[in-house]
């Protein structure tokens, strides 16, 4: 029992967790793909649409005023969550993918030229690979890759030789969505900064598992998705240091991101609006803030402690299953577990687990290079968050044993 952490209470906050599938209680272990929403988030979105809905910024009427206030308050909530220096540094986007594409384009336009290098890692999600590849192709730059070892840990000893005179930016995942590894990002940032190279961290799999302090990390950019941290879909965050964001050209053009527009010349709005083109997803942003406040009400510390217990328990149980091999055994990890069963196709396993009400994911998890590293096609992935329980882990283990039985 974790002090002040009442798992039954917490589960009752999530309507979907009360659900049955195929007449079995839903055991939702696909949180790496997307997380479920607490009632307060669902209610906030409903209330916004029933009582407050209005386009934000520049509206003088009551509704617009109210909604603008709540949108900007949401920005402050996100700022406090990340401990950013100012709300100017918090940009609302369509998601982590949108955030990374924004940086890849804007930073790329300004700072990346032919012959330059972009450094990523071997364990990146496609969303943190492809935008950089597209940039490299456009600019004639080169993609370099920090490899990981068979435990799924970055080979830090290779970092210094990979950081070169031509490296313009390092883009690294804070936590891996397929290996579960938490990367030593502070060390990477320190070494990159020693050479004046900025660092983008992909926090899509980190923020829902532990507190993040962008000033303590000293990262230059940080991105995450609302839907993976118990908030609504279609919303995300790009944090950037103010001085850096000031220098970058805008990404998308449209309403709200401009100051003056003529056909000859357009001047852009100040931060953060310069990067928020068009009618922003204000419902999404305010819903995200509701999710962050919900987490705060439980307490990140309590959540962290509970998840560590849950994670240790899961690892121990999985390791004891004969014929099960875990991919990703880093010392520092989130509660995300990729594994394979001897001679069993992942698709077969997932089909059987599904019919027991257990939702896991199979495939490459958008990290094909991780699969290539191990020479495999994909894995089965169980990803847990703080509303999952030891009993659900037991059910997963039983499910896996039954699967092995059926398929051997």
């Amino acid at each position, binding site marked *: 029992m974790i002090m002040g952490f009442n798992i039954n209470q917490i589960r009752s906050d999530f309507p979907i967790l009360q659900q049955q599938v*195929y007449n079995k209680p839903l055991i939702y272990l696909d949180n790496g793909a997307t997380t479920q929403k607490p009632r307060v988030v669902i209610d906030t979105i409903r209330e916004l649409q029933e009582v407050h809905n209005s386009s934000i910024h520049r509206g003088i009427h009551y509704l617009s005023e109210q909604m603008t206030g709540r949108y900007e308050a949401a920005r402050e909530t996100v700022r406090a969550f990340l401990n950013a220096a100012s709300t100017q540094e918090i940009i609302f986007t369509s998601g982590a993918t949108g955030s990374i594409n924004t940086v890849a384009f804007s930073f790329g336009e300004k700072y990346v030229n032919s012959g330059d290098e972009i450094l990523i890692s071997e364990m990146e999600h496609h969303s943190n690979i492809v935008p950089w590849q597209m940039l490299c192709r456009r600019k004639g730059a080169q993609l370099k890759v920090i490899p990981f070892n068979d435990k799924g840990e970055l080979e830090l000893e290779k970092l210094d030789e990979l950081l070169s005179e031509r490296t313009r930016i390092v883009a690294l995942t804070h936590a891996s969505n397929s290996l579960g590894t938490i990367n030593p990002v502070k060390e990477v940032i320190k070494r990159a900064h020693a050479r004046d190279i900025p660092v983008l961290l992909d926090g899509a799999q980190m923020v829902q598992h532990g507190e993040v302090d962008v000033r303590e990390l000293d990262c230059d950019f940080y991105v995450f998705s609302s839907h993976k941290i118990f908030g609504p879909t279609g919303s995300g965050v790009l944090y950037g240091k103010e001085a850096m964001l000031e220098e970058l050209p805008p990404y998308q053009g449209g309403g709200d991101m401009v100051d003056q527009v003529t056909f000859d010349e357009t001047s852009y709005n100040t931060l953060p609006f310069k990067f928020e083109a068009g009618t922003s997803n204000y419902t999404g942003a305010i819903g995200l803030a509701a999710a962050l406040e919900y987490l705060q009400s439980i307490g990140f510390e309590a959540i962290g402690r509970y998840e560590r217990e849950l994670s240790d328990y899961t690892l121990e149980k999985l390791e004891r299953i004969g014929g099960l091999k875990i991919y990703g055994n880093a010392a520092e990890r989130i509660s995300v577990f990729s594994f394979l069963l001897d001679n069993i*196709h992942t*698709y*077969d396993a997932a089909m*059987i687990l599904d019919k*027991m009400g257990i939702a896991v994911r199979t*495939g490459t998890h958008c990290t094909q290079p991780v699969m290539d590293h191990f020479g495999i096609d994909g894995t089965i992935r169980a990803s847990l968050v703080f509303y999952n329980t030891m009993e659900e882990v037991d059910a997963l283990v039983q499910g896996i044993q039954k699967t092995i039985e059926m*398929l051997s």
Partner: protein
Amino acid sequence: MTEYNVTQQDIVDEFSVFEDWLDRYNYLIELGNDLPAIDPEFRTSEYLINGCQSKVWLHADLVDGRLQFNADSDAIIVKGIVALLVKLMHDRTPAEILENELFFIDGIGLRQNLSPTRSNGLLAMVKKMRLYAMAYQAKENQNKEA
């Protein structure tokens, strides 16, 4: 009812005895294990239907006006469904395949497995089986005319 549809109905009836999903899957696994592996010469990229999450291989010939299917999958439950499809369509005339609706998949509650989002290759395989039937039928008609 056509003989083709009688076969489909038989499959549905066979499955109706299983109340539990896992029993149905157990039966599919059995069927999958019983289906001989595809000839190695057809287990190649040329005959591959890539389903992203599982692979299916399919080859078809026309012998004496009847389609001869040879199929396989790397996932055993998928292979079980492949076995049912082969059981139904193998050694049929193109006309039989083209004139009868495919209903047994729905009837045994496996329709999900034919959804385009399952990315298991089955939907593409069913389409391909019908395509083979169409192609061979067209060829036969041509031959007749010629």
